[in-house]
């Protein structure tokens, strides 16, 4: 990142190779449209290029930073076009299946498949209502109150689902990563 902050294009290219696939997957999931998702990826990495010098490693790793920017940009775009779609569980979205293709591991992310399997397994261990609440917040940018209203459930129920779901996810990822 320090090289990128100093304007090193080659280092920036390597950063793109390493994290663009993750950013694209996320943006495509939020927007359900590949071209718009690619626009988001370009905006994300332009922001990374411009703001590299303000990146603080103590606040989290590069991946977390880029994912946060990608999520924020994609949700902004989603809100701007006012198109909310019904959530499908991870991997079950038929429309996305059309554009989602299993690729050889992208350059620089040789453990991508391991991570995918680990997180999918962890997500799979959640109850469906926990997973839906978490995905509505994460991919749709909805607040707990908005989720409660959309699902016509009491706010307390939604809070419990999110809390217990994230706790279980955290525990599953910790134990999975330790294996």
């Amino acid at each position, binding site marked *: 990142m320090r*090289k990128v902050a100093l304007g090193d294009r080659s280092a920036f290219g390597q950063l793109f190779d390493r994290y663009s696939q993750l950013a694209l*997957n996320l943006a495509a999931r939020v927007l359900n449209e590949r071209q718009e998702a690619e626009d988001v990826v*370009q905006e994300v*990495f332009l922001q990374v290029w411009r703001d590299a*010098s303000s990146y603080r*490693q103590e606040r989290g790793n590069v991946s977390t930073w880029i994912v946060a920017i990608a999520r924020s940009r994609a949700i902004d775009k989603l809100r701007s076009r006012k198109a909310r779609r019904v959530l499908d569980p991870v991997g079950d979205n038929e429309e*996305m299946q059309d554009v989602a293709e299993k690729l050889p591991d992208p350059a620089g992310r040789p*453990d991508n498949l391991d991570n995918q399997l680990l*997180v999918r397994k962890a997500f799979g261990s959640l109850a469906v209502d926990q997973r839906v609440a978490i995905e509505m917040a994460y991919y749709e940018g909805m*607040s707990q109150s908005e989720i409660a209203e959309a699902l016509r459930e009491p706010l307390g129920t939604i809070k419990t689902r999110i809390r217990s779901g994230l706790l279980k996810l955290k525990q599953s990822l910790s134990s999975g990563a330790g294996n």
Partner: protein
Amino acid sequence: MRHEKLSELCSIYALGALDGEELREFEAHLETGCPLCGQQIQEYSQTVAAIPEALANVRPSADLKDRLMARLGQEGPRGVVDFKLAAKPMSSGSGSKRSWFPWACAVAAGLALTVSLTRVSSLNRGLAEQQEKLNQQLQQLKTLQRLLSDEKEVTQFIAKPGVRVTPLAGTDKSPQAAGQILWSAQEKKALFYASKLPLAPEGKTYQLWIIADNKPIDAGIFPVDTQGNGFLKVPLLAQADKAQKFAVTLEPAGGVPQPTGAMHLLGSL
């Protein structure tokens, strides 16, 4: 709201779903610097950041990277469009009765415009190069300002009474590596530096541990640059008063609650 209730909101806050009065109250609580909630939010943020890892790969367009790299060069010189708009439309000379005259004028004007646009294009390229150099220099300036700010913070921190310095030595995994932790139980803060650590493999990260009462306490994860330098600011928990050792291990990305990987640095009080 009692602390127990507030701490239950950490995961919802990390997900970005907290809203309304609860959000305001929770953020006011965070501003008090509560280390327990800070720690929980850090942990849950890592969990939340892992969520998109589960997604299937979407095939990108073949030229996605090329388009982005091309845009880097266009960051500043938006004058390109203005220059072209500034080229005035040609007059057709429609008042003339000689039929060849308008055509000759059009061809001549076309040639003149081509030469002019070529020159404008060349100027634009020059401008783009200058702009990119300027952008790079601005980025270097920002980086230097940040480093200066960090240095200032370190200098001010060292000057405080009660700050202790503990060196960390490389283990047999990284014999050339070294580290230093400046810590103050009074300030509840520590600054950690490492140098010559091997670059962490993909999917791995270095994690700092404070060992107190023979138990490791997670002090945070940190990346290292290509020179093996790492830096971390650590808010010290109450148990840090009893710190006996500091250690750095290589762990799965995002860090772990308890050390599992190889130790690379170790220092004792």
